[in-house]
């Protein structure tokens, strides 16, 4: 996070909507990545992303320290995505999406990327969330612990188990192919 982002957040807090538009532009990929890999549907991820930024806009005045904005936004993104999943489970509308529907038509993925995507989907929610917070935002373990309100030892343990499972999944996939 650079000084420009801090200035944009300060301006947005004073009601400058153009500044908030720049913030959306700078952080949309982070929020969308989090949403997509949790809700596993590109259309739902778009709606979640929109909802996350609306929540952030409404609550921006409550943010005490501008430097904590990425962690604060990640927290909103994670919680909104998980709530969306819970709501969808309570009111299922369609079957679980195919790989193409998950990805949308934004581009062609490499075989390895598809494998990792599937491997990521195979993780439990709690393991997937810590993995994403580390991979998407590059948060330190302590920051992830604060965002999820869990002990740092749990973050460490979940990240390690998730990485081991991903490795195992990829190993099995490649073993079948080779």
């Amino acid at each position, binding site marked *: 996070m650079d000084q420009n982002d801090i200035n944009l957040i300060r301006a947005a807090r004073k009601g400058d909507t153009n500044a908030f538009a720049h913030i959306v532009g700078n952080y949309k990929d982070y929020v969308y990545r989090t949403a997509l890999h949790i809700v596993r549907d590109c259309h739902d991820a778009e709606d979640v992303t929109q909802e996350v930024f609306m929540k952030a806009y409404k609550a921006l005045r409550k943010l005490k320290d501008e430097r904590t904005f990425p962690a604060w936004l990640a927290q909103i993104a994670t919680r909104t995505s998980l709530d969306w999943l819970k709501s969808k489970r309570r009111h299922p509308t369609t079957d679980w999406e195919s790989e193409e529907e998950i990805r949308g038509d934004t581009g062609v993925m490499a075989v390895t990327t598809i494998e990792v995507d599937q491997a990521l989907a195979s993780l439990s929610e709690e393991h997937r969330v810590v993995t994403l917070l*580390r991979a998407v935002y590059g948060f330190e373990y302590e920051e992830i612990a604060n965002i999820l309100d869990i002990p740092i030892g749990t973050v460490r343990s979940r990240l390690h188990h998730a990485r081991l499972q991903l490795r195992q999944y990829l190993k099995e996939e490649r073993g079948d192919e080779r």
Partner: protein
Amino acid sequence: MNCHEVRPMFTAYIDGALSPGEYDTVARHVAGCPSCQALLAELEETTFVLVDLVESTTAPMDIEQRVMAEIQALNQTRQANRLSLVPAIAGILGFAIIAAILLSPAGMIIRVTFRLLYRASGGIATVPVLLGHWWVIVFAISALMLIWFSVAAVLRLLRSVQSEVLL
């Protein structure tokens, strides 16, 4: 430390999340353990492809416009809500000002005048009841007399002005 004790620290080792002491312990063990070297290399590759996957995901181009359109709609709704409060606030303020005037010393005169007017209007309202059907005739005669007095006064005024001009 043996493999069983060191391996749970591998992910934190790759992520740079170990203390310097833990880091040295893992590095020393891995240097002399081929199976741990292999596992560490696999976990490093997994981490690399994971980050690669995440970074290859980008938000749709129109998401920014969608968010800003919703924000604009929200701001318009907020503004409309604020404007709808104006008449209510004006009413409350007006009531407060009238109450303050009436409760002030000057309000005493207003209250007395209001009571007098109220009583007078009550008295006038009882006239038709007292007179029965005759109130229409009394009203018509009073109106005619008022008109006659007015016309006479105007004529007299005109005459006096005319005589002043002649002098």
